[in-house]
């Protein structure tokens, strides 16, 4: 069973839906469950509740599903389809308020990186969540990125995976900026565009917070083991 959050794409157009799914699949590969629904039962533009329902059933796992849609009635049809599922499943299917293609790809990246349902949703919607859970009075730590490429792609994957291995709520930002982001989110961490020579700030709360910060600093200091 896949532990990755599923991505359901709903468009009025079959071509848009399948094309978007293809783009997400290119990023997520076989790791993330993807399904799409596009067009009405006659093959014209529209949305088909039955197809959406089948898609959701097909890709359902306990990890949950995010739904990306294009226009109003696609949202209503998605809601109607979700309401036909058992209640415990309904709670773990989130409709995202995001542009279809961009949202689906961001969701795919986050899901592929192991993000949980709330992370995938907030990333797709470009919402800052969980960042104000840490008080500014918590001490922050500094580390300079020595890695030649910076905190991108592979290093970012290693960084977020290490962060996820801790219970603690861990946040990171560029020292020159003010906005903290979730250190467990691949999309957020890559979004920092933290290149070689930049200084990162790290802070964390939770039982293993100190350990988390210490290990992450070591990872950055040792060039992500590369």
């Amino acid at each position, binding site marked *: 069973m896949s532990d990755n959050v599923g991505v359901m794409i709903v468009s009025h157009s079959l071509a848009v839906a399948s094309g978007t799914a293809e783009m997400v699949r290119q990023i997520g590969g076989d790791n993330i469950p993807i399904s799409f629904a596009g067009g*009405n039962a006659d093959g014209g533009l529209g949305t088909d509740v039955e197809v959406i329902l089948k898609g959701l059933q097909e890709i359902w796992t306990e990890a949950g599903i995010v739904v990306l849609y294009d226009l109003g009635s696609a949202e*209503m049809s998605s809601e*109607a389809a979700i309401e036909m599922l058992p209640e415990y499943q309904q709670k773990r299917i989130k409709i995202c308020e995001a542009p279809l293609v961009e949202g689906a790809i961001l969701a795919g990246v986050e899901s592929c990186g192991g993000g949980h349902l709330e992370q995938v949703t907030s990333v797709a919607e470009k919402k800052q969540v969980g960042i104000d859970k840490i008080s500014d009075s918590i001490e922050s730590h500094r580390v300079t990125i020595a890695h030649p490429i910076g905190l991108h792609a592979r290093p970012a994957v290693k960084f977020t995976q290490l962060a996820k291995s801790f219970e603690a709520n861990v946040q990171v930002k560029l020292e020159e900026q003010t906005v903290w982001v979730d250190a467990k989110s691949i999309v957020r961490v890559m979004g920092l565009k933290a290149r070689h020579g930049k200084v990162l700030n790290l802070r964390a709360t939770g039982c293993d917070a100190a350990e988390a910060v210490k290990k992450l600093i070591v990872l950055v200091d040792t060039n992500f083991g590369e």
Partner: protein
Amino acid sequence: MKAKCINLLITGTATCIEEHRELLTELDSKIGDADHGINMLRGFQAILAISPELSELNFGEALKKAGMTMLMKVGGASGPLYGSLLIGMSKATPQEEINLKEFVVMLEKGVDDVKKRGKSDVGEKTMLDVLVPVSLQLKEDANNIIDKEQLIKNIIIQAEKGLEATRLMQATKGRASFLGERSIGHLDPGAMSICLLIKTICNIINSHKECT
């Protein structure tokens, strides 16, 4: 009696949509995506196709099944909206005969579900601009004993008034909202379809003793 009435309602409403298909599409082409006529027809034909099965059921089950059919077959916004209306009404339908007060409760539940599904209310240039005043009128009339003809007259007046009111409204929901102020001056196709259907149902109830 009940089976005959369900049949009359299904055939009557399906004919109504078929006759006004072009009008609905034309209105929708002005402020929407020009598919309201064809979508409504697809839904009502699908209901017509299962009318033998529906007329065997009690009113609540028949409403629910018809609502599910709209939901599944229409393929546009009217599917989930009409589906919510019918399924909502079915939730409040009594087992046996329906009296006027019980019907008022059914309609209120259906209208509430449409509001929830569309995240909308009166004044946004939608079917609710017809449904809400009709529902309120019915509620008022159910509390004052008036004869059937007057009741039906009152409903039709409210439905037509509600429809006409959408002409001057600016759409804030659905595809029409993209037009902003340019949506003003056109009747809303969803308000038109529900107004036509309400009038059709009123006529059926008025002229057939099976549906009294």
